[in-house]
């Protein structure tokens, strides 16, 4: 029985149902899972795989509208599926803790960080308030948060996203739990920030020998964190193996297809050398929100049929540049030329034809499409507004556009956005942009809310449309894998300035600007030793500083 004693969590034939309309539908179909003390298990899969649902079930918790309908969850000898609510409550926070995806949304805006931190230990009478605060500060220090003595006394909105995510990890540690569920803890962060958080999580899990379930859709991230990896698809287990074995020798086709996603890459196109003018030329743009200057001397050109990727961390001014080009935020200084002609700075002063030429595709297709309009109306509106199409002509044009984005017109014409999947919604967003017959499209993080396989489909579609229609793209992204896949030229931005720009192949070859170097080296790689090696190279104590170069 010695081996059994080692097992902390054993899930057997777990089944979970979710309520859709009035009936219950099974979304997790009999998953088994065993976790030993001090072990880190990676759960990986696309959205809808049931990763979070299983992670929460490990705490005996089901979200509203979900229920555990079968199987057993045994934590340290205690059966959770049949335990009383108060027995489960006593476990949560004290012996099993949870770290959520978005720390910014998961900290209560009304209370100071440290007050939320000490809530559980004080409630469980594990520590007195003063001791718990002292302990919190020590954890903050261990997680390398700046000003550990003081940072806890701020409100969540006064602290940056990466710091909040570390504070949340500290909060999970407050009662020294046996098990922590990490639910996509770095997905919402920039690559450079992600490294700090990953290092902090790994460090503290090691220190306290805590077992963890690490949920993510990013293979390279899970490779750094987990001892074993379990791959899930639509509520079922595909396979499970140790991290090394899983990376080197995946057994299942689905797993291999996940591994292969980052392989899409297309040939870089050179600029036209026949004297063609750039379709968009941004010249010495300055911009500000109120008194806060956000862009300074931004200049770059985009030639017809080419894709320029604009990369940088959040707050670097990527989206603000897009707002300037579209005229939503008139720049304080500088000019924007379209086909060599200067455009009025504010969109209100631009002619209908000028407006037509520049279209946008947004990150969140969910919120960018009116949920109460049918697909046909969403795509038809710009075709009517800019092209003046009516009646049968309009209907034919919408069908043609739906065909372009590879969706069956008869099936989609009269449906509503909420009935569509994430990838389909993003395709509708693309069709809406195409309906205006633009020559230039701004793609603002169009793939970052999508699963990798779906995202790849979108990138291929955009690439095909570019070839067929000769479109120019400005591709805003923080994901360098996307840049590698689709860009011809790259513009690197940091704090409102362009720090480096040039053809893609050159940008990915050294020598780099130090910031570009930092960005490139921060992208997680499949090698399980990548993070360790990188931290050693940068000097472990400098993780925080490295990001501020």
């Amino acid at each position, binding site marked *: 029985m010695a081996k059994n004693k080692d097992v902390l969590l054993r899930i057997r034939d777990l089944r979970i149902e979710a309520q859709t309309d009035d009936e219950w539908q099974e979304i997790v179909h009999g998953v088994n899972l065993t976790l030993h003390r001090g072990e880190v298990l990676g759960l990986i899969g696309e959205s809808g795989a049931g990763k979070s649902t299983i992670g929460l079930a490990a705490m005996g918790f089901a979200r509203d509208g979900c229920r555990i309908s079968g199987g057993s969850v045994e934590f340290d000898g205690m059966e959770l599926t049949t335990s009383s609510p108060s027995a489960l*409550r006593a*476990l*949560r*926070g*004290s012996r099993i*803790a949870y770290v959520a995806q978005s720390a910014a949304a998961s*900290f*209560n805006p009304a209370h100071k960080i440290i007050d939320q931190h000490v809530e*559980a230990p004080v409630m469980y009478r594990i520590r007195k308030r003063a001791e718990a605060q002292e302990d919190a500060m020590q954890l903050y220090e261990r997680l390398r948060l700046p000003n550990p003595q003081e940072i806890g006394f701020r409100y969540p909105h006064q602290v940056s996203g990466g710091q909040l995510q570390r504070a949340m990890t500290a909060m999970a540690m407050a009662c020294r739990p046996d098990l922590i569920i990490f639910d996509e803890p770095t997905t919402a962060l920039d690559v450079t920030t992600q490294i700090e958080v990953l290092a902090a999580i790994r460090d503290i899990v090691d220190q306290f020998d805590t077992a963890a379930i690490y949920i993510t859709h990013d293979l390279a991230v899970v490779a750094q964190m987990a001892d074993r990896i379990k791959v899930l698809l639509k509520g079922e287990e595909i396979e499970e193996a140790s991290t090394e074995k899983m990376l080197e020798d995946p057994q299942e086709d689905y797993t291999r297809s996940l591994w292969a996603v980052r392989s899409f890459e297309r040939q870089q196109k050179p600029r036209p050398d026949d004297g063609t003018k750039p379709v968009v030329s941004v010249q010495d743009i300055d911009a500000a929100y109120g008194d806060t200057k956000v862009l300074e001397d931004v200049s770059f050109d985009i030639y017809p049929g080419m894709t320029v990727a604009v990369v940088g961390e959040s707050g670097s001014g990527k989206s603000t540049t897009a707002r300037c080009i579209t005229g939503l935020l008139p720049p304080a200084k500088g000019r924007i030329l379209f086909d060599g002609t200067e455009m009025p700075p504010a969109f209100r002063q631009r002619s209908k034809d000028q407006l037509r030429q520049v279209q946008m595709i947004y990150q969140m297709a969910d919120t960018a499409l009116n949920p109460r309009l049918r697909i046909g109306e969403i795509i038809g509106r710009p075709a009517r507004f800019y092209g003046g199409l009516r009646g049968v002509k309009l209907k034919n044009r919408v069908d043609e556009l739906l065909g372009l984005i590879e969706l069956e017109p008869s099936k989609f014409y009269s449906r509503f956005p909420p009935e569509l999947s994430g990838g389909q919604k993003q395709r509708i967003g693309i069709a809406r942009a195409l309906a205006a017959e633009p020559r230039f499209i701004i793609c603002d993080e169009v793939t970052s809310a999508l699963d990798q396989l779906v995202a790849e489909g979108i990138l291929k579609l955009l690439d095909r449309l570019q070839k067929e229609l000769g479109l120019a793209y400005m591709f805003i992204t923080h994901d360098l894998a996307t840049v590698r896949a689709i860009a011809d030229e790259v513009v690197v931005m940091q704090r409102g300035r362009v720090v480096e720009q040039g053809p893609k192949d050159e940008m990915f070859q050294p020598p780099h600007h130090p910031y570009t170097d930092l960005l490139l080296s921060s992208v997680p790689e499949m090698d399980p030793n990548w993070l360790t090696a990188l931290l050693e190279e940068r000097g472990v104590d400098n993780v925080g500083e490295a990001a501020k170069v």
Partner: protein
Amino acid sequence: MGDVTKLIARRLVYGALTLLVVSILIFFAVELLPGDIAQAVLGQGATKETVAALREQMGLDQPAPVRYLHWLAGAVHGDFGVSLISGDRVSAVIGPRFLNTLFLASYAAVIAVPFAITLGILVALLRNSIFDRVANVVTLTAISSPEFFLGYILILFFAVKTSAFPAIASIGSHMSFGDLLYRSFLPALTLVLVVTAHMMRMTRAAIISLLASPYIEMARLKGVSPWRVIVRHALPNAWAPIINVVALNLAYLITGVVLVEVVFVYPGIGQLLVDAVSKRDFPIVQACCLIFAATFILLNLAADVGAILTNPRLRHPK
């Protein structure tokens, strides 16, 4: 905190401007009423000479804008002119009546606001239970019945059948505080019944709308008890809409009590207003309207400021 002070100062200025606009509306609305005030005061039998003399005495021979400015200047100093009927100073007539109304409104508010919010928290906690439904039905019935009807029902049960409380809330300045509370209990209870439903339902809705937030899920995953989740994690973020509804109801307690005052013969400003309107005592009508408008503006201002003060993002800027 500098930002908040500036914000409050700006809202106060807006409030004063609104009040100015309202004062113009009130003055000229009364001006538009048909008939001549001097004629009305003196009655049918008055001679042309006496009417002209009275017009001159009342300043009615001057153009309206001049009279408005006179009235406004007086109002700013608390002088609203004299009653056309009794000849008493308007401020002397209104003052004690307004205090009575304020007393009744505070009486009802002190009971209703904590009661409604506590009830709202309880029904949010026990949402969709029998208790939730019963509380909803009862409070909705209370708000759907006209106040005078509720008042008579209460009189029937508490005054006629049991004589626990007096049916007529006649109060005077010589009475002790306890006596005042006792005598005005029934009108206060009527008002409580009328305003509770709004505040309770808004508290419930504001709390429940937050229960799907990630930070509430986080609190539940920390093992926080359901009661504490609502009171400590949801309620502090739900104050803004609750405060707004509370302010609207407080304003109603002061300006909407006419019927209740009439039913219980309570000597408040509502009764005075009814009398003044029927007797065409315009200075009193104007003063009452201005006081009501000021009440509304001030309470809404207080609600805005309260909503700002309960928002940590505004209270603690980056």
